[in-house]
C-alpha cells in the first residue's frame, strides 16, 4: 500500500464511524506502521480540533414567518376543472373540423366518418359529361331561337312602320288630288 494512494482514505480513520473504520484493517495497519501517514493523520486531527473552537452562535434575529396561505374558496376547485374541460372541448372540435368528421343518424344508427379530404357530395348534385353536353346544347339552342325571334320581331316592326308610312303618304296624295279637282 503506497502512502500517496491512501491520503484521501485517512478520512476513514479520522472520523470514528464504526463501519468505515473497521472496514479496512489494512489501512489501519499501514498508517500505524508509516510515520508519514501517522503524522498527516495527527495534523488533520489538529485541524479538526482547531475548527471546533468556532462554537455555534444564536441567530441575530428570529426568522420572519411567511404569511399563511389563503384558504381556497369553497368552489375554487371548479375553475381548474372547467378550464381543462374547455380546453379539451376546443381540441376535440378542432380535431373534428380538421378531419372533416361527419356524424349522421340514419335508420336508427349513428354513423361517424372522418376523412382528410372533404366528403364527396351525393351524385344527384353533379352532372355527367353527357348531361353537361345536353345542357350546353339546350342553352345554345335556346339562345339561337331567341336571336331568331328577336330578329323576326324587329323585321316585323320595320315592315309595320313602312306600311304605316306608305298609308300616310297615300292619304296625303289623295287629299291633294281632291283639292286640285275642286279648284279646277
Amino acid at each position, binding site marked *: 500500500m503506497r502512502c500517496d494512494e491512501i491520503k484521501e482514505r485517512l478520512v476513514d480513520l479520522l472520523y470514528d464511524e464504526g463501519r468505515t473504520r473497521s472496514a479496512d484493517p489494512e489501512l489501519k495497519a499501514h498508517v500505524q506502521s508509516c510515520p508519514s501517514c501517522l503524522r498527516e493523520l495527527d495534523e488533520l486531527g489538529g485541524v479538526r480540533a482547531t475548527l471546533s473552537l468556532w462554537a455555534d452562535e444564536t441567530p441575530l434575529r*428570529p426568522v420572519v414567518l411567511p404569511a399563511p396561505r389563503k384558504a381556497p374558496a369553497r368552489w375554487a376547485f371548479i375553475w381548474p376543472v372547467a378550464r381543462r374541460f374547455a380546453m379539451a372541448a376546443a381540441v376535440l372540435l378542432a380535431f373534428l373540423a380538421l378531419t372533416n368528421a361527419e356524424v349522421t343518424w340514419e335508420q336508427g344508427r349513428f354513423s361517424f366518418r372522418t376523412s382528410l379530404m372533404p366528403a364527396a357530395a351525393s351524385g344527384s348534385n353533379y352532372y355527367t359529361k353527357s348531361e353537361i353536353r345536353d345542357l350546353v346544347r339546350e342553352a345554345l339552342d335556346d339562345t339561337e331561337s331567341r336571336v331568331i325571334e328577336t330578329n323576326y320581331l324587329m323585321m316585323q316592326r320595320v315592315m309595320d312602320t313602312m306600311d304605316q308610312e306608305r298609308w300616310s303618304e297615300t292619304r296625303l296624295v289623295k287629299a291633294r288630288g281632291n283639292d286640285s279637282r275642286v279648284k279646277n
Partner: protein
Amino acid sequence: MSSSEDAVRRFLSGEDDAFEQLVRLWEKRIYNLAWRFLGNREDAQDAVQDTFFAAYRSLRTLRKPESFPTWLYQIALNHCRGRWRSRTDQVSLDEQSVEKQDGSEGIVRSEGMAPEARDQLETVDLIRKALVNISEEHKTAIVLKEYLGLSLEEVAEVMECPLSTAKSRLYHGLRGVQRNLKRLGVKS
C-alpha cells in the same frame, strides 16, 4: 418519528402552523451553517430567511418527510452559494484583525476583554478566514461534517455525490484549512 418529521407530516396534511415549529427547530442549525459558509452574520441571517421562505413555498413537493433535514440543508447551501458568489467584499486572509473591526464582520468587539478570551476570539476569527477561503465544495463538506455533525454518508447525500467523493472533498478541505491557518500563523 422525529419531531421534524411529525411537523412536516402535519404541514403536508394542511396544518400551516406546523411550519413555525419547523422554523424554531431548525433556524439555529441553518444559521450556523450559513455563518460558517459565508463568514458574515448579516449575510447568514439573510440566507436563513431566504432558506425558510423557499422551504415554505416548496415543502408541499417533499415526498419523503423523513428526508426533510437533507432537503433543508440543500436549500440552505444553494442560498449560501448564491450569496457567496454575489458578494463583492469577499473575506480575505489579509483582512484586518478582529479588534479593528466593528461587530458586523468579525466575531465580536474584543475591547475590554480578558486576554485569554481575546486570544480565543482572535483565533476563532482566523479560523473563520481560513475556512471561508477554501473552495465551495470543500467548505461545504467541512461545515456539514465538522459543524453540523453529519455522518460521511449524510454528507455525501446532501452534496449529492458518491461517498468516496465526499471523503475526498473533506480531506482536501481540511488540508486547505490547514494551509490557510499556517499562513495566518495559527498552530493546529
